[in-house]
């Protein structure tokens, strides 16, 4: 599985959506229920999957699909 596929699977499982829903509009404002529980599940799943330790500031930025993509680049995870 590619890194992008791994990331998409995490999103689909946490938000209970199809992969086709994941685009630049997939963010905290548009997705109902993007609360702290989901945000932390997302960041924890990403940490486990890619074996990284996110900074607190980055966890606070886990507020959109695009942001997560961008943050992963910072940790040298190529998507």
């Amino acid at each position, binding site marked *: 599985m590619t890194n992008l596929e791994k990331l998409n699977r995490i999103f689909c499982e*946490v938000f*209970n959506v199809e992969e086709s829903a994941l685009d630049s509009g997939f963010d905290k404002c548009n997705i109902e229920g993007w609360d702290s*529980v*989901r*945000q*932390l599940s997302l*960041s924890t799943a990403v940490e486990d999957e890619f074996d990284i330790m996110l900074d*607190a500031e980055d966890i*606070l930025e*886990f507020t959109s699909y695009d942001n997560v993509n961008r943050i992963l680049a910072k940790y040298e995870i190529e998507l």
Partner: protein
Amino acid sequence: MFLDLDKKPKDKVAAIDDSGASLTYGEICGFISRFTHALPQRSLFFIFAENKIGSLLGYVGALSSSVVPLVISAKTEKTLYETLRDKYSPAYLWAPNEMLPGLGGEITDFSEAGYTLVKTGLQSPALYEDLALLLPTSGSTGSPKLVRHSYRNIEANAFNVLRLFGLTENEHPMAVLPMHYTMGLSVISSHLLAGATLILSGRSLLDKGFWQMMREHRVTSFTGVPYSYELLSKLRFFRMDLPDLYTITQGGGKMTEELFKAYADYAEQKGKRFIATYGQTECTARMAYLPAELATTKTCSIGIAEPGGQLSIIDKDGRETFEGEAEGEMVYRGENVTLGYATCAEDLLKGDENYGVMHTGDLARRDADGCYFIIGRLKRFLKIYGLRIGLDEVEQMVKAEFNTDCHCKGDDEKLIVLVTDARLKEVLPAFIEGKTHLFHQRVEVHVVKEIMRNETGKVIDQ
């Protein structure tokens, strides 16, 4: 007046919310006098609560004017709101302006801080003279069962909590627990009684704005549920520089031993205080607390009764004791023990059914020093993320929707649902989340051939 609000300095700030708006004690009193003229006394009144100044005004306005509010989340599912409305028949609603189009009823011109009064056209039911406040038993989740509070309950809780924490007008508490949740309201009422400045926030702890508010308003105390503390650890809270934060306090369920120790040690090292507490909606929030100086030695203890209250244990032989080592159901006595439940409008006329004594339904152990530890639960509910999930209620919901046999169990980590229809494995987590707000990954569905029962119909543990 309610919480002696009229005795505080008029220009002292009582609350600041996420929008940056602030409200003084003088403005609260001015609003209360307008509110009193806008609504007839002993009306039933629903508040669609958010942690905002408008919502706070509706609450203090009602409590000061002999109007009885039911406080529910502004995010309450529409069908649950309609069930509550049809069951209890409120004459008025107090709702955020953006909700008005969907509510029906007559929108009045009485409006303040983004909230507006709506006249439903329904007639309030008859209300018991000392009935002050109604809260759902389970936060924003499924059940229309309510807890009936008296005026004395609220005042007693506010005063007990004020004494427990030694609150003064210099506090700037972070009021981030929802207002429709008993502990959220307790933070609000105890600090208003103290004449302090509430920092009201509806933000998530994972929102940058939340941390800006913590620093900008020099927050002095934080009240959270176990899950809040899990989140804080993830955010490397122990390394944050928060010099004004003096009190961190926890309620709404049991923390893990590891987490409890971490916060107790952190507080000790940094010269702060960590205070674990215990409470229930049925007792107007708080009932017990572990004094800060015992935090590092009595790990996971809920401590002793709060000032003004008394704890005891009834052991398996039915013997009640107030001191010495014991194990059994924990019982609480105090003026904050609520009047009882309501399940229909007629119940709102009922008086006090508890007489100041609450059998908590929690199993506790008391050590030789008199400290209590919760070790189990007699009642059928789980507490996950501070949400109370009634197992019987979830079973009924699932049975009603899907025509399957169903049994629920679990622990405070996850809800386990046993069903006989294999097709439900995929859909149930999302369905249960929709009804109860419990995150679907904390729901585990097990498909079984049959839900086994004994001859009396009771489910056999399986």
